[in-house]
C-alpha cells in the first residue's frame, strides 16, 4: 500500500515536471530555428515588397550555407527554417497568418508584415501567444503605445522619420521657411506632424500646411498658393504616386522653391519625373557608399533574390531585421521565447543602416538619412560621417536640371 502511494506520488511529480519545465535540455536540441513572416506578395503593398519572399529565402539560404546560427545552449549550429505566407496586403489576413505561423508552424520568431496597419493587426497575435515579433517597416506610434512586450521595431517612430533632415537644415542655416504639402493618409500625416514640430524647433517659419486628399488629380490651387508664399522648402509628405503627380504639376506651373523635399523619392519616383526628379531631397535607409554593416552581403542577397534596390527601397530595412534576428538568436543562445525577447530588447548592434537599439516600447533607432538625387543617383547628404555626397542648395532652375 505504501509503495503504491510512493509510486503514485512519483508519477504525479514526473507529470508535473514534464508539464512545467520546458524541454530544453542540451541532450534534446531542436532540429532548426523556425522563422516566419507574412509578405504582401499580392494586393496594394505588392508594389513595395512584392518579391520579398525571395529576399527572406536568400537570407535563410545564406545563413544555412554557413551551417546556421550557433546556439550555445544546445552547443551546435542550427539551420533556419522559413515559413512565409502572402498576407494580400490585408490586415485581417496578416493577423490570421501570423496566428498560423505561431500555432501551426511553431515559429520561434516572427518578422512583421509591411506597413503600420498590417503590423498593428499581426503583432496582436504574437503578443497573445508570447512569441518575439520583429516589426520592419511599421513606424506608426499607435503600434507601440499599447504596452506590448513581445514586439521590437527596426525603424524609428514616424514623427522622427526626417529628423536628420531638420538637423541638417538647422546646421546649414540657409533655409528660413517651409511649406508642407501633405497627403491625407495615415503615414504621411504622421510624418508631417512630427516634421512640423522638428521644423519649428530648427527655427523655420511654417509658411503653409496643405493637407490634400490622396486621390487629388489637380494640384493647381496648392501650387498657386505656394508660388505666392515662395517658401524656401516645399516639403511633400506623401507616398510616391501622390508625390509624382504633385512634382509633375509643380514643374508645369513653374513652382520654384529653393528645395523640394519628398519623404519618399525612391522606387519608381525618378522614372516618370525624369529631370524633374533631379536635386529632390528625400529619405534613404541605405545608399551605395555607406560604410555601416556588411554592404557586400546585402548586395549579394539582393542579387540572389533578383531584387533591384532602386525599385524596392525598403529592402535595406529588411536586411537590418535579418541582422538583428541573427545577432539576437546568437546572443540569446537558446530558443526560449522569454530569453530571446529579453535579448532582443537589450540588443545593441551596428547594422547596415547604422547602430540599433530599442526603446522601452520597442521602437528602434534606425532612421532614414537625407538623400538627394544627383545625376540620377542617390547621395546621402547628412550627417557628415555618413554622407556620400554634398548637399546642393539651392536647387538649380527647372531648365538647368
Amino acid at each position, binding site marked *: 500500500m505504501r509503495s503504491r502511494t510512493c509510486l503514485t506520488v512519483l508519477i504525479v511529480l514526473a507529470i508535473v515536471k514534464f508539464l512545467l519545465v520546458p524541454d530544453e535540455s542540451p541532450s534534446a536540441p531542436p532540429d532548426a530555428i523556425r522563422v516566419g513572416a507574412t509578405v504582401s506578395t499580392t494586393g496594394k503593398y505588392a508594389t513595395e515588397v512584392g518579391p520579398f519572399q525571395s529576399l527572406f529565402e536568400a537570407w535563410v539560404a545564406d545563413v544555412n550555407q554557413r551551417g546556421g546560427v550557433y546556439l550555445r545552449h544546445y552547443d551546435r549550429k542550427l539551420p533556419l527554417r522559413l515559413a512565409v505566407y502572402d498576407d494580400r496586403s490585408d490586415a485581417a489576413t496578416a493577423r490570421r497568418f501570423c496566428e498560423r505561423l505561431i500555432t501551426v508552424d511553431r515559429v520561434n520568431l516572427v518578422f512583421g508584415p509591411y506597413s503600420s496597419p498590417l503590423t498593428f493587426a499581426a503583432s496582436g497575435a504574437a503578443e497573445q501567444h508570447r512569441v518575439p515579433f520583429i516589426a520592419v517597416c511599421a513606424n506608426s506610434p499607435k503600434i507601440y503605445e499599447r504596452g506590448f512586450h513581445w514586439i521590437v521595431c527596426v525603424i524609428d517612430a514616424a514623427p522622427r522619420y526626417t529628423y536628420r533632415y531638420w538637423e541638417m537644415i538647422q546646421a546649414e542655416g540657409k533655409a528660413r521657411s517651409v511649406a508642407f504639402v501633405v497627403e491625407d493618409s495615415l503615414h504621411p500625416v504622421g510624418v508631417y506632424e512630427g516634421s512640423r514640430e522638428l521644423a519649428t524647433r530648427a527655427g523655420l517659419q511654417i509658411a503653409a500646411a496643405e493637407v*490634400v486628399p490622396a486621390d487629388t*488629380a489637380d494640384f493647381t490651387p496648392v501650387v498657386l498658393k505656394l508660388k505666392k508664399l515662395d517658401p524656401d522648402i516645399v516639403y511633400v509628405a506623401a507616398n510616391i504616386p501622390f508625390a509624382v503627380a504633385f512634382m509633375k504639376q509643380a514643374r508645369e506651373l513653374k513652382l520654384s522653391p529653393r528645395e523640394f523635399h519628398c519623404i519618399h523619392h525612391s522606387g519608381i519616383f525618378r522614372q516618370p519625373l525624369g529631370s524633374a526628379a533631379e536635386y529632390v531631397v528625400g529619405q534613404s535607409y541605405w545608399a551605395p557608399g555607406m560604410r555601416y554593416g556588411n554592404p557586400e552581403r546585402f548586395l549579394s542577397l539582393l542579387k540572389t533574390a533578383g531584387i533591384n534596390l532602386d525599385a524596392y527601397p525598403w529592402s535595406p530595412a529588411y536586411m537590418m531585421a535579418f541582422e538583428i534576428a541573427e545577432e539576437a538568436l546568437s546572443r540569446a543562445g537558446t530558443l526560449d521565447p522569454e530569453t530571446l525577447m529579453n535579448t532582443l530588447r537589450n540588443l545593441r548592434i551596428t547594422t547596415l543602416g547604422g547602430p540599433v537599439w530599442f526603446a522601452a516600447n520597442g521602437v528602434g533607432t534606425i532612421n532614414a538619412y537625407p538623400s538627394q538625387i544627383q545625376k540620377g543617383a542617390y547621395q546621402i547628404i547628412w550627417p557628415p560621417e555618413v554622407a556620400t555626397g554634398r548637399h546642393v542648395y539651392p536647387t538649380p532652375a527647372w531648365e538647368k536640371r
Partner: protein
Amino acid sequence: MDLVSFLQLLLSGILLGGVYALLAAGLALCFGVLGLLNLAHGSFLVLAAYAYQTLQAAVPYGSALGFLLIPCLCGLVGFVTFTALLGGPYRRSPEDFLTPALLITLGLALVLEELVAILWGHSMAGVEDRFFPIQLGQLSLSGNRALILIMMVVLSAALHAWLKHTDSGRCLRALAQDQLAATVVGISPVGTSALAFTIATGLSAMAGLFYVTLFTVTPHLGLPLTLKALFLIVVSGRRSVVAPLSGGLLLGVLETLIAGLMGASWASIIALTTLLTCLCYRPDGLFTEGGLHKAH
C-alpha cells in the same frame, strides 16, 4: 483671389475635365450605347499603361509606336473578348444580358489584374511626360493635359458623328433603341456590338497611355478607375457619348475652383455633393437632352 489666379484655376479645371472625360470615354460607349457595363474597362487601361511603359523604354520611338500600336492591339483583344466571352450570352438573351455581362467582365478584370501583376512583377508604372508646358502670358498650361482635352473634344465629336451619320453608327443606335426590331431589319446584333466593344476597348487603352504620363499606375488600379468613370457617366447622362466630356469639364472646374477658394480637402466632397444634388432633379443625368435617343 486675383484675376490671373482665377483664370489659371479655371484653365486647370477645364484641363482636368479633359482627363476625367478621357477616363470615361470607353466606358461611356459601352455602357451608354451598348448597355454593357464593362467592369474590365479600367483593367484594359492599366494593361495598356504597362505595355506603353515597356515599349517606351525598350524601343526607339517607343512613345509614337505605343500610341499607334497599343490601342489597336487592345481593340483587337476587345473584339476577341466580346466574340468569345460576351457574344454567346448576348445572342441567347439580349434582354437579360446585363447580369452575365457584369460577371464576365468582373472576372475578366480580375484576370487582367493578375496578368499585369505577374508580367510586370507588381511594380508601379509611370512614364515621363514629353510635352513642355505652354506659357500664355502669366498663365501656364500643361502641354500633356491640353493635348488630352483637344483629343477628347475631337474624339467626342468623331464618335457623335459616327453614331449619327454612318451606317454602322445607325445600326448601333437602332440596337440600343430596340434590339428585336433591329434584328428583324437585318442588323447583326453580335457583329455590331463587337465593333462598338472593340472601339471602346481601344479608347480605354488610349486613356491608359495618357493616364500613365500624368499619374502612376499599379496593377490593382483597374476597378477603382472603372468606378470613377462609371460615376462620371451616371452623373453626366449615360445615353450620350458627348455627355462625359461635359460632365468631366463641369466636375473638373468645380473641383479646382472649390479647392482654390476653400482648400483642397473640400474640393471633391463639395463638387460631388453638388453634382449628386443636381442628379436628384435630373435622374437621367445632367447632359442628356441632346443624347443618343433624342438624336433619332
